[in-house]
């Protein structure tokens, strides 16, 4: 009895899960595996469209005779790049209507015209004509002829489905494309973006955890940068930082802080002289990192605030009795209480910042030294239109991601469940 019940339970569970699992499999897991396949192929953006043989049917009357008609098929290869092989054609004729003087490539069997056109090169076009005649010399209704649609088939190479593979893409990724710099930029961006967001998050959480007038208002506006659409915010910042008439540059020039406007998003290096040492600062990258911090510290803030509010009040009361000041309270009570959440936050945010695409893309498009791995996927795949290369970079991202996840679960997976 109980075994049938559990069987029913199992079946119900699978029925309930099936739609969601199928969808996730089709849209998330399948592409990840498809990436592996594509990354070993030489595919360009223009190769994606599969060439098809196409025909447009036109029926024309012939003068002086309504028992005869001309059918014109405008044949073409839909692709301008790829050939189609072994094109076959078939169309049905109504009863009692036969073709006259049929083309050599065709034959007529059981009211069907079947043709074999052979190979069509790229951009092939032909006007193919058939004359038809009613067997009993009756008038032909041209609508009957129009009602059937020609059926065409051909062998075209869907470049994605062939089995010739190459290591060229990976070779290009690792050797020709300054891979080390790409990786360094990505890590620089990810590390400082994450660190900055968490530090600012700690400050903000510590602030909102106090009582002051307008605290709830403060709490809401602190989340604005994250809630707002990235497109609008990125363009607003681009305009703010614009060297020609951006508000921030104009203000700085107006108050004499700087002499000339600085192109914060378009200048790769800023050379700073400190005590005779020349320091090269990655300017555009730093600006992008600051935007990143600005936009994502609210998340760190939210997490840390939730943890701060769970710290027992008597810890602080005891510290008050001992005469500890606010700074000492922070370093000796608050900080030890939030280290666990900070480490989890750091790992998770690190993984997400590592994959960040929109922010950099909208601010600089990967120019002036801000090219990170995700931007490189886009550039290779869609700007250079080399889909295979783009996929190869994606694979690099996935591999790095998997190793981060393994580290994450090894280090703090258990801790995460406790909290």
């Amino acid at each position: 009895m109980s075994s049938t019940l559990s069987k029913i339970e199992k079946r119900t569970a699978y029925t309930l899960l099936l739609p969601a699992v199928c969808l996730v499999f089709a849209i998330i897991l399948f592409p990840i595996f498809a990436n592996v396949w594509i990354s070993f192929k030489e595919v360009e953006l223009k190769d994606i469209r599969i060439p098809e043989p196409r025909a447009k049917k036109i029926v024309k009357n012939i003068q002086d005779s309504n028992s005869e008609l001309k059918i014109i098929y405008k044949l073409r290869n839909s692709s301008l790049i790829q050939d189609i092989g072994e094109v076959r054609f078939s169309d049905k004729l109504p009863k009692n209507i036969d073709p006259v003087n049929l083309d050599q490539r065709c034959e007529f069997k059981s009211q069907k015209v079947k043709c074999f056109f052979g190979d069509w090169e790229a951009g092939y076009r032909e006007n193919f004509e058939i004359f038809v005649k009613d067997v009993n010399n009756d008038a032909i209704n041209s609508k009957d002829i129009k009602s059937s649609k020609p059926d065409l088939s051909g062998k075209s190479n869907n470049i994605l489905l062939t089995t010739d593979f190459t290591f060229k893409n990976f070779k290009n990724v690792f050797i020709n494309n300054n891979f080390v710099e790409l990786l360094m930029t990505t890590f620089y961006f990810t590390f400082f973006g994450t660190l900055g967001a968490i530090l600012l998050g700690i400050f903000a959480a510590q602030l909102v955890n106090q009582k002051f007038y307008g605290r709830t208002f403060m709490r809401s506006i602190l989340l604005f940068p994250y809630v707002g659409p990235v497109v609008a915010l990125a363009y607003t910042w681009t305009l703010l930082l614009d060297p020609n008439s951006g508000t921030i540059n104009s203000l700085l020039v107006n108050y004499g802080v700087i002499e000339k406007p600085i192109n914060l998003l378009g200048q790769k290096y800023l050379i700073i002289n400190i005590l005779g040492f020349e320091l090269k600062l990655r300017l555009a990258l730093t600006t992008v990192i600051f935007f990143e911090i600005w936009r994502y510290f609210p998340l760190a803030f939210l997490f840390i605030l939730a943890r701060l509010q769970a710290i027992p009040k008597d810890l602080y009361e005891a510290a008050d009795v001992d005469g500890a000041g606010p700074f000492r309270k922070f370093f000796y009570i608050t900080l030890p209480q939030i280290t666990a959440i900070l480490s989890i936050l750091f790992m998770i945010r690190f993984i997400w910042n590592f994959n960040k695409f929109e922010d950099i893309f909208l601010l600089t498009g990967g120019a002036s030294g801000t090219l990170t791995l995700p931007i490189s996927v886009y550039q290779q795949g869609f700007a250079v239109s080399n889909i295979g290369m783009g996929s190869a970079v994606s694979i690099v991202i996935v591999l790095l991601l998997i190793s981060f996840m393994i580290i994450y679960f090894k280090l703090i997976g258990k801790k995460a469940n406790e909290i």
Partner: protein
Amino acid sequence: MKFKSLIITLLASSIFLTIIICIWKILATLQGLSFTNLNFNLNLLLSLGLVITCVFIGKKFNHNLKIFILSLLFTILYTFLNENSPMWFSVGIFLLILFFTNKLKKYDLKYLNQDFISEKIVFEFLSLFAIVFFALVILFPFYIMFVTSFKTQTALLINPIDLSIDFSKNIFEIFKSYFVIFKTYDFGRYILTSTYVSIGTVLITLLFAIPAAYAVARLNFFGKTFLSTSILIIYMFPAIVLVIPLYTVFSQLGLRNSVEGLLIVYTSTTLPVAIYMLQGYFKSIPKEIEEAGLIDGQNWFGIIIKIIIPLSLPAIASVSLYVFMIAWNEFLFSLMFLDNPKTFTLSRAINHLTGDAETPRQYLMAGSVVVTLPILLIFIYFEKYLVSGLTAGSVKG
């Protein structure tokens, strides 16, 4: 009397006041006042004088009378020593000083004599400064976005830091950018598309996620633990690694440039987190209620519809708002999949506007306001639900 805490109070508070005055001055510059010098040192000295007077007078007079007279006095002094400025600017300075002297209320010589007071004082002014800092850093871009949309191209070119709105023009002139983006750039259609896609994503996600979450939360089946851990791992995979295969497959299936294609992708990328959030809530519902339903002869469909959904409305609201926000703000897939202006979402449309370097910036900002305002209003109105959604889902983003 502790000399050290007195010095610290004087320095911390006067620096704070000076910075606030500087910020006010910069904001006034954006309203068209032509200041070119912050006068930081002079104002610091003035502030120092104010704080010293304030602390030494202490509680000898009526507090309100004291701060009113002091503020008035120092505002006049300030206006006299700085550049010419209109009345509203001085009123602002007066209010700032009033607020500041009110904060100084408890600081008299006696108060400064306590133990461990200096650290507390620094902390207090640091907090005040942090409030101003965070408010400014966050709201400034939104403010700029908003006011720029009311300017004209020529006015922006002549003086890029004058962002004041000219109220002497008639209302059509002021709102011209908005009329233009709706009329010429067809933003009405994009708003509809974005709304349709976002709401559609929410509905389909709920339709798929509620049964799946129920199964994960309640039923026993082979592979359950595997499934619940893989939900989170799948969730960690970013959109950028999915883009190329989806692009190729969608091109070959003719799903690009269609809203349906976007709906499918948005739904499946938000499904894992929706299932994760919902199953956590479903587990907290007492099992006895469902058992009562079973005895009444309900099947699982009846249980989900009649028991689970009504009991977990708050969680469903959180998930819906979170998914709505993700779909409304999404950019990468709409950039990849939509080329035809007829199928653009708002985000894609704004990106398209910037593709033409000639597009005046006030139109761009008006478009940004149009895409930002709805989501911010929804956030403010449903803050409670959205925040709990964000906290649960904020591993992503």
